[in-house]
């Protein structure tokens, strides 16, 4: 990074530190912070969509759909989320390969589970074994996003269906009195009004999502925890680092990162909730009106 870094023998103290913190590996480490934040921003719309579908399903008039919607959110909340983070990518991977097997190799006659192996024809492998390395990595990240969306979709479904129930009953009855169909009532009356009730739950969910991101490490994504362990340890598989065991310091840096992320989110969400309460017929809105 800096010109004086070329000869490490001459370096002392701060100059050494500056060089150390700008090595190629460290730049990858800094990049992984953006990977984590990026992943969160991709997960949020996916999880909201899943949650919205789940919440609508749990209010459906068709009984099987209602059961699916209700059991989806109840099941995920009753089981540790990390179990789903381990389960969903593997299950999704095998499900997709099985589907591709049905399409691409219709004359495949062997069982797909042979002893302790899952066997599909070469053309059905996902990604293909001939695919370049980056495709494998992207596939892993996509599976991780799917797992996060599945879990947080269930949480969002819980929050959103609670919010839908919180919309005053009189509003819906009025809509019915005006002759709106059920579908019209849902989309024109219920959905626009539910967001202010959903906001506290959704901000809580965002906090939980932030705090769940280190689990990406378990899914094999090269995230900040991976790099912190890699760079902090005093030796890796390949070579020794010129320092002792610094993992504690790296993890403390991660701690500071997460604390600032949650703090900033808290402040922003607090402002958002104040903005949304303005003019609402709720306790917060009434307090604002009095204060003004």
């Amino acid at each position, binding site marked *: 990074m800096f010109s004086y870094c070329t000869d490490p023998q001459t370096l002392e103290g701060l100059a050494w530190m500056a060089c150390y913190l700008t090595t190629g590996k460290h730049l990858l480490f800094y990049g992984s912070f953006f990977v984590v934040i990026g992943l969160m921003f991709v997960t949020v719309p996916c999880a909201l969509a899943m949650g919205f579908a789940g919440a609508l399903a749990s209010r459906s008039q068709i009984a099987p759909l209602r059961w699916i919607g209700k059991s989806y959110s109840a099941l995920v909340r009753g089981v540790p989320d990390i179990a789903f983070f381990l*389960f969903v990518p*593997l299950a999704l991977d095998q499900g997709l390969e099985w589907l591709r097997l049905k399409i691409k190799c219709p004359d495949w006659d062997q069982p797909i589970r042979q002893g*302790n192996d899952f066997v599909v024809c070469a053309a059905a492998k996902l990604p293909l074994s001939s695919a370049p390395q980056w495709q494998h990595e992207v596939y892993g990240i996509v599976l991780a996003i799917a797992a996060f969306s599945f879990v947080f979709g269930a949480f969002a479904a819980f929050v959103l269906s609670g919010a839908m129930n919180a919309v005053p009953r009189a509003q819906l009855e009025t809509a019915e009195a005006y002759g709106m169909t059920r579908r019209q009532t849902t989309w024109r009356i219920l959905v626009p009004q539910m967001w202010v009730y959903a906001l506290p739950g959704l901000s809580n969910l965002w906090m939980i999502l932030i705090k769940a991101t280190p*689990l990406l490490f378990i899914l094999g994504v090269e995230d900040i925890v991976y790099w912190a362990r890699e760079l902090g340890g005093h030796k890796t598989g390949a070579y020794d680092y010129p320092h002792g065991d610094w993992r504690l310091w790296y993890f403390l840096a991660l701690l500071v990162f997460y604390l600032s992320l949650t703090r900033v989110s808290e402040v922003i969400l607090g402002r958002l909730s104040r903005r949304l309460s303005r003019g609402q017929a709720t306790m917060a809105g009434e307090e604002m009106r009095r204060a003004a």
Partner: protein
Amino acid sequence: MSCVETFQNYALRSIGLGERLLPKTDFTLCDHFVLIGSGLIWNVYFAVLALFFGFFFATAIALARNSRSAALRKPAQWYIFVFRGSPLFIQFFICYEALTLLPKNGIEINLLFTEITAGTRWLTRAWAGALIVLFLNTSAYTGEIFYGALRSVPKSDLEAADAYGFSGWARFRRITWPTMLRLAWPAYTNEAIFLTHATTLVFFSSFPAWQQKGDALYYASYFADKTFNPFVAYPILAFYFILLSLAIIGAFGLVNRRLNRHLPQDRRAAFRPRPALMR
């Protein structure tokens, strides 16, 4: 091997009793159920002890947070902020790294007349180290819940207590504390459920499962890795955890009934066993 034999060999495997070698091939449903159930011992151990000790510490934290003196309030605020604002996973890592940095041979403590060596090796083991982290973590979350409840104790209750001549410790013990618990109980039930779920993280963070003595998720993922089939082990794990969650809801529901026993039947708030989102 019949199921009874499997049970005899592996029911206590997670605490080191019974057969040493884990099953390697030909896993039966019975193997799955027994071994994952055996791992559940650790989840219950961590959850019960962390919740028990955390309950008292959280009360202290809530009181400190509510205190007028900044010397008490500020540390409590920071404690809650640090533990609620950061992922439990990172807390496990930091704690493990910090504990391994302690000298391996123990710390010499020089008392006036004799010298004793306090061993530190056991602190890096999961049963102690992870328990400390879980205890500190749940205390922070519970402390925040209790603090919120403490702030919403009705003023009239306290005025009535004053009128009856209660003060100091008696007022806290008889009036403030029970009311606080009553208000906090539904949220605290959620916290208990989510802490129990969080115990599955222990062996997936730094703490090593020594001699393959792990918790339920450890064995479930062992099976899933070996058979490459996630559709058996994880549903069994889910089944166990749903049972555990229901047990927690039942136990906390009983306490809730006792806390509200003075209220007339129709004024008792319905105890809703729906795990909301707290963590």
